[in-house]
């Protein structure tokens, strides 16, 4: 600072003022500097911000482009979806028509089934019945849909006694019980008009997802079948009675003559009468055998199976022939295995078969020869062997042995009688019991018959 010696206070005032000004200028300059620095900073920040904005602007531009691309894609997708939707609608319509067609077809099939068909829900209420049901029972669908099948259609036995709700097959099947059909008892369904007809019906549960949701029953009117069965049984019964009555008359009158009921008979008369009696007995045997054959062929032979001790059965048959065996001085031997289980067979029928085989052995074995019987366990079967050292069966005739009325030539000549039906009956009976019969034989050496009976269940 210049410091002038000026005249006095004027210059001092000016100098002071200049200093103040200078100081203000400096201060302002400093302020300006600060402001300039601040401005510079602000400018830098502004530049940074501007640059950021530029970047953001670019990003926005990219985003906008993406958005546009996406928008176009969406447009395409939307169009495709619309088309798909139209196609789907068309397909659904077609499928619905198909299903409707199939449903109508099924309905037509169900409706036309000759047998009666009824579907019930879990509670036993009718949900569907077909035309045959309506025709057989006289009810209209509208009248009974939704009602309890067991109540609408009573089931009766032969004597008109109603089957209770609990005992109805439908009830049992719906409650998950395994139903075992009683085939021997005829059952009847009662129509709307209270008349009835014999029925054969099958009930099965409808299972969905492991649960019983209802049941289906199919039933048939078996009046015709029962009539045919009745006619068959009556024919056999009538034939047996008509054939046997005159035979009984000859039987008993010869017996009474021989007993001297009509006066004393001379030894010669006795001989003649005995021949009459014997001849008549042959007729009786033949008629009995023919009746058995006709029962087998007409299927009216109903097997009544029960647990049977086969050894006892065979021993009983042997007992019947013991007299003849002794008379012919035949050496008889038997071997019965241990632990032979009881088998489920009809003892009458199997007894008949065994009797026919044993009777042949006794008949066709000459005096002094041997007969042997053995019963052994053979795996899942019982094996019965009846062997003899008798006349045997000629090789060329062995294939016909089981045919009706066949008797081999070598025995027809000998002093024996037979119907030729015994083995046919034995074979039929044994095969019905799921068994087998076969033999080995050599003429003049002997024959052995084998019978196989399974221990398990048998077909009816």
């Amino acid at each position, binding site marked *: 600072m210049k410091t002038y010696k000026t005249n006095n206070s004027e210059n001092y005032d000016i100098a002071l003022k200049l200093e103040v000004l200078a100081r203000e200028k400096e201060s302002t300059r400093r302020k300006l500097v600060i402001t300039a620095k601040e401005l510079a900073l602000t400018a830098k920040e502004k530049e940074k911000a501007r640059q950021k904005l530029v970047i953001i602007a670019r990003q926005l531009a990219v985003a906008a482009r993406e958005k546009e691309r996406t928008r176009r894609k969406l447009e395409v997708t939307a169009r495709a979806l619309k088309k798909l939707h139209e196609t789907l609608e068309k397909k659904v319509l077609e499928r619905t028509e198909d299903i409707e067609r199939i449903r109508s077809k099924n309905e037509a099939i169900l409706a036309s089934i000759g047998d009666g068909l009824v579907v019930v829900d879990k509670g036993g209420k009718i949900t569907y019945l077909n035309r045959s049901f309506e025709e057989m029972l006289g009810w209209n669908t509208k009248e009974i849909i939704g009602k309890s099948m067991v109540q609408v259609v009573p089931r009766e036995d032969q004597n008109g006694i109603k089957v209770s709700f609990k005992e109805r097959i439908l009830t049992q099947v719906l409650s998950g019980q395994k139903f075992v059909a009683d085939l021997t008892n005829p059952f009847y369904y009662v129509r709307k008009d209270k008349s009835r007809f014999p029925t054969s019906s099958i009930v099965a549960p409808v299972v969905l997802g492991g649960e019983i949701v209802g049941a289906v029953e199919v039933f048939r009117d078996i009046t015709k079948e029962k009539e045919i069965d009745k006619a068959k049984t009556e024919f056999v019964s009538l034939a*047996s009675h008509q054939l046997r009555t005159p035979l009984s*008359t000859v039987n008993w*009158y010869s017996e009474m003559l021989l007993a001297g*009921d009509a006066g004393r008979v001379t030894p010669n008369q006795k001989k003649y009468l005995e021949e009459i009696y014997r001849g008549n007995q042959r007729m009786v045997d033949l008629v009995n055998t023919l009746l058995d054959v006709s029962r087998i062929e007409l299927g009216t032979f109903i097997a009544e199976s029960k647990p049977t001790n086969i050894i006892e059965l065979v021993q009983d048959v042997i007992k019947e022939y013991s007299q003849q065996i002794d008379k012919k001085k035949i050496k008889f031997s038997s071997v019965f295995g241990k632990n032979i289980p009881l088998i489920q067979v009809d003892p009458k029928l199997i007894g008949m078969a065994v009797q026919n085989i044993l009777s042949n052995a006794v008949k066709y074995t000459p005096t002094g020869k041997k007969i042997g019987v053995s019963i052994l366990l053979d795996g899942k079967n019982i094996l019965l062997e009846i062997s003899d050292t008798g006349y045997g069966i000629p090789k060329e005739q062995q294939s016909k042995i089981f045919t009706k009325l066949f008797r081999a030539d070598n025995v027809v000549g000998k002093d024996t009688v037979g119907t030729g039906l015994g083995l046919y009956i034995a074979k039929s009976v044994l095969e019905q019991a799921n068994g087998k019969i076969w033999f080995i034989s050599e003429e003049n050496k002997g024959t052995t018959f084998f019978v196989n009976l399974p221990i398990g269940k048998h077909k009816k």
Partner: protein
Amino acid sequence: MKKPIIKKKIILVIEDERPLLQVVNSRLKKKGFEIISARSVDQVFDSGLKKKGLNIITASSIKQALEYLENLERIDAIWLDHNLFGKENGLDLVKKLKANGGRWNKIPIFVVSNTESNKTIKSYSDLGISKYYVKSNHKLDDIIKEIKLTLDGSIF
């Protein structure tokens, strides 16, 4: 010493075939039985009355018929054929007798028939009879012997 009077056993024989009825009656008589015979179920209820020479009074019920028989005859056994004259057969007779209970239930019934139907035999055995014979399979004397054995062992 007075000989004990042995009452003869009375058998009711019901058989439709005349020759068979005759030979059975004749043999049974020879073997010491008394016979009442009939060839149909209706005749069974008439027979007792006929024998006594009474007019046939039509019984208005089986019960009444049995009452008549009850008073007139004591029957020890019945020889019954299955096929008979008239509409009813042996089974119908057995049903009627059993339905009336009392002593009619206890009389041994021997069915001697040529019918061999399992169903028929079962029906008889269900109702309760002594034995079922297939006529042509047995000697007459054998059947009579068995009837005698049964009666001798019974309380009649």
